[in-house]
């Protein structure tokens, strides 16, 4: 998994690339734990270059979503490729997570 982070309009945007499977889960957990530090943190994950996600990847995203709620932070996902979006549907996490079609949509929602 490769990560590129940047700050845009007060939102930490992390672009993930590669597979979000069991091997990447702990790295992803540490990354999100750091990004979501501090009340009012706004984090948007750009999933556009994610090639695979499984239940462990989804598990980390759901945990991050709960962590953000408990810390008063905002957490959202954007640009999930077709198969990644299907995994959210199959695991019924699509209703739980904040998912935007594009990074711009996600930025607009979080920056507001």
């Amino acid at each position, binding site marked *: 998994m490769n990560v590129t982070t940047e700050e845009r309009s007060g939102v930490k945007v992390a672009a993930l690339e590669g597979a979000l499977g069991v091997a990447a*889960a702990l790295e992803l957990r540490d990354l999100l734990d750091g990004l979501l530090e501090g009340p009012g943190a706004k984090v948007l994950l750009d999933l556009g270059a994610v090639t695979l996600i499984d*239940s462990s990847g989804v598990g*980390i995203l759901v945990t991050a979503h709960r962590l953000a709620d408990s810390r008063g932070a905002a957490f959202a996902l954007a640009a999930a*490729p077709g198969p990644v979006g299907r995994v959210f549907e*199959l*695991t*019924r996490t699509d209703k*739980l997570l904040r998912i935007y079609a594009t990074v711009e949509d996600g930025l607009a929602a979080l920056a507001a």
Partner: protein
Amino acid sequence: MPRTERGAEERWRQVLSVLARESGYERRLDALLDLVAELGGLPSGHLYLLDEGGRRFHLQRSRLPAGTHGVQAGGGLEGGAGSVTPAPPLELPRTPADEGERTVDTPAGRLRSLPLALDGELLGLLQLGPVDNDLPRHARHALEPLRFPLALALQRARDEHALRQQLDAALARIDVSRRLEGSALDLDRFVDLLLELALRSTRTEAGFVATVDPNGGPLALRSHRGLTDGVAEQLDLSPETGLFDWSPAAEGGALVLRDFETASRLGFRSLLAVPLLDGDVPLGVFALVNFGESGTFDEDSLELLETYAEQIKLMLRNARLFESFAEEYLATVKSLARSLDARRALTRGHHERMAAVAEALARELGLPGDEVEAIRTAALIHDVGLAGVVEAEAYIADIAHPTIGAGLVAHLPLHPFVAEAIAAHHEWFDGWGFPHGLKGEEIPLGGRVLGAAELLVELGTGDAVRGPMPLDGIAAELDVRSGSQLDPRVAAAAARALPRLPLYPIHEKETA
């Protein structure tokens, strides 16, 4: 006809000839790439197809210079012996620049990337090389008329590919139906088969199905394939601390992996688990596991996964409904048997006494608990086939009642002993019984036990003329009938158990 149109027509003819000659998605694309290489004089050609979401290009087929084979960044080999050429990337993110022609530097060298579009819709990319900066003039001249037919062929091939995927899914469903014919009531076999087919069609290494007990209780492993017993035993599925974080009643039934450390320790490389819900009612979890790099859970695999998850869900739901129906149905049959007994004083309580005696005989024979229980159930309903007997046809009904009674419960999810025992409870060990005249070991053991129990209960009950036979008389009858009416082993067990058998409850109560 102008020369350029003749050239285009000739290219069309060549493309159509290739498509007509080759069958199958990959072979057609290979043949088209060969044609491109031949006409353009460029040895390397790579064909990418844009995914349905329009976000990424996926490498469909690749043509490398003759006598070479490609090596992916991960080290996998393509092709046979020969010199090594770096293979092109398997995927490319789509960028605005892909709409136009451009030169790109790739692990496979400097290539010219040509968009393939139809009606303004980008379908894929054709990357050719090696080039310096642009296509050589002769190559451009030869290839330009090929772009439209190539795009058309790519679209056609893509549609065929999608159709084939749908066909595969449909065939898989038919295969499921065909293979499950005759086992509709065997849930575990059904789930096993679905799991096997799901793994095969999604090219996944392992998987498991866990179900929730309808009366409450935690998730429990029901079926697994590709997991060693050690791994299966270590799967903790408890709701509080187990592998999955799943509260079906909360968060819309969302299911995620909780215990990454255990998944990693068990060697899971990727694991995709989907919840099986009937509305809001949790039925179980269906999970696919890969230990190596092979698992991709791509769009096609996900569609198949969903298909199988749906089948397993339906089966679990139907099994629950059927089990509930079967319990109620069996209770009705038992009531019917009791009401038959109630018609005459001498038969009152007959089925209950038969159940107690048959159970005691089965225990005396040392049968396992499930067989003892099955024989008891059979005894409780063994004469139910006599229901609705018309006096004028009493003889025929009497002969047929074991078969009719067995038929009433044969399709219920009960131990096979139940229907077998009912069907054979009037067979004689020497072949003189009915309805089939079975002999010796041909008679199912349950039938032999029930036959002996029936004799004992009838002798103990007596009839309108003779009263209940005393125990010593019954012991003598057992001795006489051993080997003729009765299985000697069962007769011996009955003789041993005789003092403890509840043969006279009605008379004792009535005379008390």
